[in-house]
């Protein structure tokens, strides 16, 4: 029972965080800050949803597979974000920085 409630909380919070992150990619002004919003949906939202599902699954093969998905996301999502940011910086996409605005 407690596990059920816990997993529901995890799932709901994860879902809401995902939506907030997705709203973030529309509200932030430039690519680099949007990347942070993607980060929310990629990390905590994904972790919470997978955790909520794992609580439902209990100790089984399904939980192990969920753990594997988690490990893959844990390794690939920062790598993809880093590669994306570094590629963008290389191609000459300038980030909007706070200091620039002050100067103007």
């Amino acid at each position: 029972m407690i596990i059920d409630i816990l997993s529901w909380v995890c799932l709901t919070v994860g879902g809401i965080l995902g939506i907030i992150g997705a709203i973030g990619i529309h509200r932030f002004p430039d690519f680099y800050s949007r990347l942070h919003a993607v980060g929310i949906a990629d990390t905590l939202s994904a972790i919470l949803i997978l955790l909520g599902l794992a609580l439902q699954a209990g100790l089984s093969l399904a939980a192990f597979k969920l753990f594997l998905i988690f490990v893959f996301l844990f390794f690939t999502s920062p790598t993809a974000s880093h590669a994306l940011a570094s590629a963008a910086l290389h191609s000459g996409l300038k980030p909007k920085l706070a200091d620039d605005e002050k100067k103007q």
Partner: protein
Amino acid sequence: MLGLGLASIALTVFLAIRMNLFDDESYPFHLFSQFPAFFIYILNEIVKANIDVVKRIMKPSSISPQLVDIPVPQKSDLGRVIYANSITLTPGTVSVALSKDTLTIHALTKEASEDLTEGSMAKKIPDVVIKK
């Protein structure tokens, strides 16, 4: 069935050795003892950073994006990679470029970048020296 499983593992190992994939970098078994503590630490950081960025999304005018260089104390490639990926994992900071001893990061707020410059996270990353 068991035979097929063993054959699969054998083929994988054969290919991986052909690709030169196995060394202390890709599968750092000697770090397993340090892993749980580090994992809990990074999870905690992720939660904190998430709450912060969620607040910023509610009020987008409060962001002050920064592009700063921070020092990387780790000597080995693996340690630097773990550090860079941990920074990227915590929302609010993204590592943009990694060179020999500095890491360029893009931070959503000034506070986040200052935290990293002080290097509180860097101390937590296990610095592994790989025997070559």
